[in-house]
């Protein structure tokens, strides 16, 4: 396997540095990646498989001595492409309406506030489902803290297009949710 030859060819210090870096990146980005992939409609198992593959690719990428710039957007791009490959029709596979669950509404002061929060969440859920796939993807990536430039790298579109798409999507949600 070529992965073994990578490790043997590398200087030990550099390999150790890359391993530490990869571990830190894994701890930092695993959950955002899982959240993004679940938002695309992947199941838990599919999302975890894709994340594992993405980090394996990143390890090989770093071990081969390739560029370490924008590694966050690089990881999201790999995960995004793998998700598309393993589930071409993920937009149609979004499940039924979501239940916000106890944790999200438990901090509300009164039952009335909890009911209002739940209704608001359902309106948002419906509005997000009505968005076009690029709008939803831009919003999900923005929610994970990616800059417009990074979102453009992940989705393969210009930064200016990302700005327009984000603005259009947020305005649609603000109108539909009536907030």
């Amino acid at each position, binding site marked *: 396997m070529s992965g073994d030859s990578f490790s043997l060819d590398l200087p030990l210090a550099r390999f150790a540095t890359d391993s530490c870096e990869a571990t830190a990146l894994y701890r930092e980005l695993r*959950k955002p990646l*899982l*959240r*993004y992939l*679940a*938002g695309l409609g*992947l*199941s*838990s*198992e599919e*999302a975890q498989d894709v994340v594992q593959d993405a980090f394996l690719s990143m390890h090989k990428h770093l071990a081969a001595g390739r560029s370490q710039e924008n590694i966050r957007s690089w990881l999201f791009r790999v995960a995004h492409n793998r998700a598309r490959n393993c589930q071409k029709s993920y937009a149609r596979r979004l*499940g039924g309406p*979501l*239940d*916000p*669950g106890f*944790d*999200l509404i438990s901090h509300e002061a009164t039952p009335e506030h909890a009911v209002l929060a739940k209704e*608001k*969440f359902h309106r*948002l*859920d419906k509005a*997000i489902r009505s968005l076009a796939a690029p709008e939803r993807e831009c*919003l*999900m990536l*923005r*929610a*994970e803290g990616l*800059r*417009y430039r990074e979102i453009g790298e992940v989705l393969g579109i210009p930064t200016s297009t990302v*700005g327009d798409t*984000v*603005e259009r999507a*947020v*305005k649609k*949600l*603000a109108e539909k*949710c009536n*907030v």
Partner: protein
Amino acid sequence: MCDFSGRLIAWMDCELEANEAAVVERHVRACAECRERVAAYEDVSRGIAAYCDVVLETAMVTKIHRKLPRWVPVVAGAAAVAAVVLVLALLPRSVRPVPVIPQVAEVRTPIAPKTGTNTPNPVQRRHAAAHRKTQTATWAVAEPAIQIAIPGDAMFPPGAVPEGVNFVANLSLADGSVQGLRLQP
């Protein structure tokens, strides 16, 4: 609509150049309509972040609560029994087990009473053949050549049979091939 409304979200996301961001910031301080819009957009942004958390949480909970269908263990048990039978049937004759010699080794065919002519009675012959077959089948069940114990849990879903109950598969062999299979608890 205010002229700055198209730059509010980019300003919120810190995507504007420094000088342009300063201009928008001064305007938002002065414009009540834009302040209201910014508040609404921030509310939506917080809602999206919470939505992403719920989506992931829902995916994880769905995984935990997923159960195997009830028919899976039944089919698995039946497949295991079928596999055992198939392996035994395909065993080469050179390695087949030594057959157990039955206690009743001979089955006497009833002798038809002699008549004056040599013409066989077709009804009697059919009856005799059926009698022989019955005798052979009785012998096969009473003296199985191979017994295989199969745990009840392997064939039935949990709770369907009491714990610890095994089933014994009696395989009757004749001429080196499986002639019958009978399961007994």
